[in-house]
C-alpha cells in the first residue's frame, strides 16, 4: 500500500510548480497576433496534417524573422483535431475561448470542418480549410470561411481535360468513400463524354484496408484504358502496390495530395513510375510555388502544402491591411489582399513590403490565384501537372 506522506506531497507540488514556471515566453514589442492551427496530427489525416503545419509555421517564422507586422509577431497555437469531429469541436472551443484566436486554419476532413464551422461563425472566428465537400461553403457561415481547395467540379473538369488530351478515353475510377467521391465521378464523366469518351467503371472503397485487390479487379472488368485513383495518401500507397502486383500497366492519374514524397518512398520506385498528378496552381509565371517549395527545401510540393502556405500568407497580409486581429476584420479584409487590381505579390514578405509602400495588393498563391467568390470558394484557377519519374515528381505543365 502506497502512503501519501507530506514529503511526497511537497515533492509533487514542487515538480508541478517547476513545470508551470518553465516556459515563460518573451514577447516582442506589441501584443502577438494569435493564430489557431487546427489540423489532423493523429487519425486518418495524420499523414497530411504535419506537412501542412510545417508549411504554415515556415511562413509565420519567415514573417516574424523579418520583424512581423509593425513589430507585432505571429504566435501559432496548435491543436490536433484527431480527424474526429467530436475531438475537433472540443479543440476549436479551446482555441477560441481560452486562447482567443481570431482565426483558425488547417482543418482537413470535411466532417471536421463542417462540425467546427458553426462554432467559428457563432463566435466570429475566421476559418481557412482544405476540405473539399461542396456542402461546406453552402452552410450559413456569414463569410467566416474561405477555402483554397477548388470544388471537386473545378478539379474534375481540369483532370478529365488532361486525360482526354492524352488520347485515353475510357476512365476507370477507383477512389475512397469521401464527400467528393460522387461529384468527382459525375464531372469526370460529363467532361470526358464531351471529348467522346466515358467513365467506364467506378468503384468506391473504404479507408484503412490492407489490400484493394478486389476493388481493382472490379474496376478492371470494364476494360478501362486509364485509371483515375481518387484517394488519400495512405490508401493510394496500397492501391499503387496492388496495381503493380496485378501487372496492370495503365496510365494512372492521382490528386497531388495523394502522392507526396512519402507515398513514393513507401513503395519501390517502379511501382509509382509514370503516375501523373494534378493540383491547383497559379499562373505559369507565378513564382509563389517556387518560393513555397524553396522555403521548405523541396523541389515539388503537393496541393495541401501549397494551400497551407497560402492560408498563412493570406492571414499575415490581411492583418497587415486591417491592423486588427479579430475574426470580423479577417472576414471583411481577406478579399482586399487576395484579389482585385492591386500589384501582384507572391509571398507574405513581398506583400508586406508593398503594403508598407501604400500599394494595393493581389496575392497570387502557391496553390492558385486565391480569388474567392462570395461564399468563400475558389473562383477559378489553373492546374499544374507532374509525373513520377524514378521515384521523384517531375514537372509536366500548367494548363
Amino acid at each position, binding site marked *: 500500500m502506497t502512503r501519501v506522506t507530506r514529503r511526497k506531497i511537497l515533492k509533487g507540488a514542487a515538480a508541478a510548480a517547476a513545470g508551470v514556471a518553465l516556459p515563460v515566453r518573451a514577447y516582442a514589442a506589441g501584443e502577438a497576433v494569435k493564430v489557431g492551427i487546427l489540423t489532423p496530427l493523429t487519425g486518418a489525416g495524420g499523414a497530411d496534417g504535419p506537412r501542412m503545419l510545417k508549411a504554415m509555421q515556415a511562413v509565420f517564422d519567415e514573417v516574424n524573422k523579418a520583424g512581423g507586422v509593425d513589430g507585432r509577431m505571429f504566435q501559432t497555437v496548435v491543436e490536433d483535431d484527431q480527424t*474526429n469531429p467530436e475531438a475537433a469541436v472540443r479543440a476549436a472551443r479551446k482555441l477560441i475561448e481560452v486562447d482567443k484566436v481570431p482565426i483558425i486554419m488547417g482543418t482537413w476532413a470535411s*466532417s471536421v470542418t463542417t*462540425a467546427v464551422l458553426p462554432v467559428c461563425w457563432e463566435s466570429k472566428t475566421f476559418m481557412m480549410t482544405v476540405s473539399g465537400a461542396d456542402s461546406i461553403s453552402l452552410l450559413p457561415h456569414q463569410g467566416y470561411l474561405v477555402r483554397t481547395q477548388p470544388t471537386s467540379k473545378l478539379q474534375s473538369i481540369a483532370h478529365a481535360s488532361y486525360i482526354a488530351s492524352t488520347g485515353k478515353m475510357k476512365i476507370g475510377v477507383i477512389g475512397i*468513400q469521401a464527400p467528393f467521391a460522387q461529384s468527382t465521378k459525375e464531372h469526370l464523366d460529363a467532361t470526358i463524354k464531351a471529348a467522346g469518351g466515358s467513365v467506364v467503371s467506378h468503384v468506391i472503397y473504404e479507408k484503412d484496408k490492407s489490400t484493394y485487390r478486389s476493388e481493382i479487379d472490379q474496376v478492371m472488368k470494364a476494360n478501362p484504358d486509364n485509371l483515375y485513383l481518387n484517394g488519400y495518401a495512405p490508401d493510394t500507397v496500397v492501391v499503387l502496390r496492388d496495381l503493380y502486383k496485378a501487372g496492370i500497366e495503365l496510365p494512372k492519374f492521382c490528386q497531388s495530395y495523394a502522392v507526396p514524397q512519402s507515398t513514393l518512398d513507401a513503395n519501390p520506385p517502379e511501382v509509382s513510375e509514370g503516375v501523373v498528378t494534378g493540383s491547383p496552381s497559379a499562373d505559369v509565371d507565378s513564382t509563389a510555388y517556387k518560393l513555397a517549395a524553396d522555403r521548405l527545401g523541396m523541389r515539388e510540393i503537393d496541393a495541401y502544402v501549397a494551400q497551407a502556405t497560402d492560408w498563412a500568407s493570406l492571414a499575415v497580409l490581411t492583418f497587415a491591411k486591417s491592423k486588427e486581429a479579430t475574426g470580423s476584420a479577417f472576414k471583411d479584409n481577406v478579399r482586399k489582399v487576395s484579389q482585385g487590381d492591386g500589384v501582384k505579390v507572391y509571398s507574405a514578405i513581398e506583400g508586406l513590403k508593398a503594403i508598407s509602400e501604400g500599394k494595393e495588393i493581389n496575392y497570387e498563391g502557391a496553390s492558385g490565384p486565391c480569388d474567392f467568390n462570395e461564399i468563400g470558394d475558389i473562383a477559378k484557377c489553373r492546374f499544374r501537372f507532374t509525373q513520377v519519374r524514378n521515384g521523384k515528381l517531375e514537372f509536366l505543365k500548367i494548363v
Partner: protein
Amino acid sequence: MEHYLIAMGVTAGIYAIMALGMNVIWGMAGLINLGLVGFFAVGAYTSALLTVKLGWPLAAGIVSGTALAALVGIGVSLITVRMRGDYLAIVTLGFAETLRVVMSNELWIANGTDGLSGIPGPLRGTLDPHAFNLLFLGIVWTVVAVLFVFLQRLSFSPFGRVLRGIRDDEGVVEVAGKNVVLFKAKAFAVGSGALGLAGALYGHFTSYIAPDLFAPLLTLYIKLSLLTGGLGNNVGAIVGAVLIVFFLEATRFIVPLVPAVSSVQAASLREILIAATLLLILRWRAKGLIPERIANISLPPPTAEARTQPI
C-alpha cells in the same frame, strides 16, 4: 474561459449519460459491448432525421431516438445471445462499424460522409451562443440526474441483482429459474436507450453529425471513463466521465509545457498519456477510483465443520 468550461461541461454530461448506459450493459450485466458508438449513432441519426427532414418537435425526436436505440439494443442482444466475452465484444464492434460504413455509403439516408448539418437545438438562434450552451448544460445535467436516480433504483432492485448474478455466474441464475436471455435483452434495452439519448442530445447540441463521429475512438473514451470511475457503479460512471473529459482537456494545457516537443510529437504524447492512464488504472486500480460496493452481502464465516469437509 468560462464559456469553454461550460461547453466542456456539456461534453462531460453527454459522456456521463453514455457511461451510465454502458454501465448497465457492461458494469451490471457483464456484457462487453464495444458497439457503444453504434447505439449513440442510432439515437443521433434518428432524432436528427426526424427533426430536420420531417420537422418533428425536438422532444419527440429525442424520445424516438432513445426508443429506437433501445429496440436496436434488444435486436443486437438477441442476435448475440450465444456469445460472451471477447466474441460478444467483436460482434458488437462489428455492429457499430457496419452502421458507420452503411451511413457513409448510403447517401440517400443522411448525405453519406457529408453528414447532416443544421440540426435544430432548443432556442438556438433566439439565444446567443453562450446562453444556448448554458441552457444545454442545464438540460444535459438534468438528464444525467434523472437517469442516475432511475438507474440507481434499478441497480438495487431485484432486477439489478439478477443482472449482477448473470455477470458473476450465468449458470447459477439460470438454475435459480430466471430467464437469462430476457434479462440480457432488457439490460441491453436500458443501456442502449441511454446511449441513444446521449447521441440525440449530442446532435442537437453541436447541430452536426457525420459517420466520422461514430468511429471507435469515442467508445474507448467511454470505456476509459467507466474503468476510471469504477465499473458497476453509477456514481463511478459519472465521476469517471467528468474526469476523462477533464483529463483529455487538461493534456492540451500540460503537454505544450514539456520542453523540446514539437506539435506533432505533442499530439502523439497526448495519446500516449491516455493509453498510459488506462494501463495504470488497470494495474493499480482495476476496480476504479470508486469501486462497486455490493451491499447486503455478508458471507457467514466458514464453520469448523465446513472446513474439515472435502469440497
